């Protein structure tokens, strides 16, 4: 019995062992099958399911003004996309989603019932729509959980992030910046010109997802400079651009003009500080504007410059040495028979005028005689050297080269004569301003610069555009002579006596150009032009203003010159140029202050102004009492006294260092503390 029992136990043990062994073998075999025989394929399948390759959208670079203010910036917005082939009940989905997205149910149903594998349902949602869509998604997910339903049509319509271009300054410099397509590619202006640099580099990253499709780990970085486009730093100054646009708009409204253009350039560097045109275009909604308005007309439109062209004729004649500023020309009392059948006129009749007089009075006949004296071929070469008739090389698409006939080959004396006062020649406002800037830059033509540099997302400079002199057009002496001659235009007796901002001198020139309409010069459509350099002695700004078809007045000196004055005055202030201070005695303020201190010491209750005679008492030797004075009074006092100061706080002065009565020493710095409500 015992033997039997032992044997049974042994059999059982063996059976269990065999079973376990068999199981182990099965497991081993399965392991072998999965890991070795099918291992490679299964691993690939797992990779496919777990590892997703996702595109990373590039972030378009910024466009900044010269002070770093954002003129164009891209932000991420959400778009709604769908996979119509996967959607079973498009009608129900459309009914639910149409009010959420603000679409018509029928249109949405058509879209969701289509045979396309992928459709954009609505692009660039507003934050409100995005929020509404997310709320709808949450509601759908909640009801699906409650129903325990795995498959849903709602899974195949979802949000996809995209970049959207914003222009926070709205229409400011819109025609310069250009605009982008909905896919973020530049279509016009600088956006188009520098699209490659701005766009960035799209790339693909690996992402591990779990069974629910949630991202477990991703290669994508939160801030990835590799996908970010470069930033563009312009020479434009946002404030000056605003000033130019504001004043131009005001003038266009005042004169009920068809439009206007203004360009502000630094003549030393060729930097374009402002490039304004009216009507303006808001690139945030560029589709609302006609193509004509979207264009940067300062570069793409060539106009006849009218009398403003005379300064270049005079500069050429002077530089060639064929005339001197004091040479006299007979202006034929306003009527000159050039050929047997053709004559030219002046607006006002003039007799004998010097070169300076020709420019100051803007005599057509005088200018024509200057051109004749210079000679066609030589004049042509000078005008070409000023940049007329050829592209300036600015980094901007669609630049118009203008039209300049070869005056050396022209047979008609009338054609040569009319060219001298800006007829039969067309220039872009940019060419006109750069040529003017050459006069203000000692005769050296600079390449116009709209872009200062390109920097990457880390702020490192990728490419720089330094000031580049193109060529010397005229000698320094001639340029100086021209500035002196042009300065007479804005003085009494000139054609634009009101063009100079208070406290500054301006070397300018007016122009009133008839417009060509259907191949004929119009008698009621004009371009009023004024261009000038300010200050006339050492120009820091070259500005040209063109008002298109003004009503009521047509002359450049009346219509365009006031715009120039306002732009110049405000721009100079922005750049820190102030009119020369009146010649006041340096210590006058201190003298009166000392007298005041003494008077206060003698009569502390009165507190009145010091007697004027006290100023003559002698040089000050002690620091005045500044207590109780406003910042303006203290600054005025110390400035006129020649004492440097350091101010702290606001309100009225409560303490000062050195204290009142301290003997003044050269180079002393006075610290004054102010408190409000004193």
């Amino acid at each position, binding site marked *: 019995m015992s033997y039997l029992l032992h044997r049974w136990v042994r059999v059982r043990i063996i059976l269990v062992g065999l079973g376990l062994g068999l199981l182990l073998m099965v497991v081993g075999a399965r392991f072998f099958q999965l890991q070795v025989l099918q291992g490679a394929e299964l691993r690939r399948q797992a990779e496919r399911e777990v590892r997703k390759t996702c595109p990373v959208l590039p972030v378009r670079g910024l466009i900044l003004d010269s002070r770093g203010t954002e003129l164009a910036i891209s932000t991420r917005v959400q778009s709604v996309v769908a996979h119509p082939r996967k959607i079973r009940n498009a009608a129900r989905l459309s009914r639910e989603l149409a009010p959420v997205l603000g679409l018509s149910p029928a249109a949405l149903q058509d879209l969701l019932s289509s045979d396309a594998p992928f459709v954009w349902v609505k692009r660039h949602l507003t934050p409100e729509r995005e929020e509404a869509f997310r709320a709808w998604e949450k509601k759908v997910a909640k009801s699906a959980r409650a129903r325990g339903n795995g498959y849903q049509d709602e899974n195949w319509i979802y949000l996809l992030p995209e970049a959207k271009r914003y222009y926070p300054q709205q229409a400011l410099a819109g025609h310069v910046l250009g605009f982008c397509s909905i896919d973020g590619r530049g279509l016009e202006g600088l956006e188009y010109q520098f699209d490659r640099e701005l766009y960035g580099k799209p790339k693909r990253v690996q992402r591990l997802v779990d069974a629910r499709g949630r991202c477990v780990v991703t290669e994508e970085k939160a801030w990835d400079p590799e996908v970010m486009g470069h930033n563009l730093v312009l020479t434009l100054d946002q404030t000056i651009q605003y000033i130019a646009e504001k004043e131009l708009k005001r003038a266009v409204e005042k004169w009920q003009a068809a439009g206007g253009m203004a360009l502000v350039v630094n003549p030393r560097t060729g930097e374009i500080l402002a490039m304004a045109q009216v009507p303006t275009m808001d690139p945030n909604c560029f589709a609302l504007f006609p193509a004509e308005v979207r264009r940067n007309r300062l570069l793409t439109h060539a106009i006849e410059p009218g009398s403003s062209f005379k300064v270049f004729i005079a500069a050429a004649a002077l530089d060639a040495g064929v005339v001197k500023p004091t040479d006299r020309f007979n202006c034929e009392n306003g009527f000159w028979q050039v050929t047997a059948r053709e004559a030219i006129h002046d607006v006002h009749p003039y007799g004998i005028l010097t070169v300076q007089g020709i420019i100051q009075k803007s005599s057509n006949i005088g200018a024509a005689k200057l051109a004749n004296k210079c000679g066609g071929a030589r004049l042509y070469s000078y005008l070409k050297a000023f940049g007329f008739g050829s592209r300036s090389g600015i980094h901007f698409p669609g630049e118009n080269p203008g039209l300049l006939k070869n005056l050396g080959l022209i047979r008609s004396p009338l054609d040569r004569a009319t060219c001298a006062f800006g007829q039969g020649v067309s220039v872009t406002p940019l060419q006109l301003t750069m040529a003017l800037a050459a006069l203000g830059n000692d005769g050296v033509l600079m390449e116009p610069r709209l872009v200062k540099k390109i920097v990457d997302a880390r702020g490192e400079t990728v490419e720089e555009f330094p000031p580049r002199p193109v060529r010397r057009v005229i000698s320094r002496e001639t340029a100086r002579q021209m500035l002196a001659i042009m300065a007479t235009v804005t003085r009494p007796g000139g054609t634009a006596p009101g063009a100079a901002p208070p406290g500054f001198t301006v070397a300018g020139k007016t122009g009133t150009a008839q417009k060509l309409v259907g191949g004929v010069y119009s008698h009621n459509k004009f371009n009023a032009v004024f261009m000038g350099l300010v200050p006339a002695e050492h120009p820091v700004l070259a500005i040209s203003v063109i008002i298109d078809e003004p009503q009521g007045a047509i002359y450049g000196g009346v219509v365009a010159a006031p715009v120039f004055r306002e732009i110049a005055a405000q721009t100079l202030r922005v750049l820190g140029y*102030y009119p020369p201070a009146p010649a006041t005695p340096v210590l006058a303020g201190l003298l009166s202050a000392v007298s005041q201190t003494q008077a206060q010491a003698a009569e502390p209750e009165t507190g009145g102004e010091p007697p004027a005679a006290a100023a003559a008492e002698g040089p000050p030797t002690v620091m005045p009492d500044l207590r109780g004075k406003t910042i303006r009074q203290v600054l005025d006092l110390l400035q006129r006294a020649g004492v440097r100061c350091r101010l702290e706080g606001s309100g009225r002065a409560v303490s000062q260092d050195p204290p009142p009565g301290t003997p003044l020493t050269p180079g002393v710095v006075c610290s004054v503390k102010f408190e409000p409500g004193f």
Partner: protein
Amino acid sequence: MSANLTLRLTAVSHALLARNRKVSRRHSAWGRAVVAAMLLVTAAVVLTSLIWAWANLQMVTLNYEISQAQETIKQYLEINRKLQVELANLKSPARLERLAEDVYEMGAPQPQQIIRLP
């Protein structure tokens, strides 16, 4: 016969009924060592597996946390960009000029109001 029967029954009862037989077995020292080693190895394997599983779990959890943190950073960067747009809007010269003129009754300084500091 009866004696044989008795003897056989006694043997059966010994085999089946007597559970408190005094049996002495010889235990092999080698066998104990093997058992101990196997136990040790099993414990080590179990422990290693637990640590491996824990580490894997930690890795997955941390990966989730990293993804979420990255997503948060992206959201903050996006908010930052939107605030930049807002700031640029608020700092636009047109708005500032309007505020200065309409609200604070400010204007451009006249030349005589400008004080140059030495």
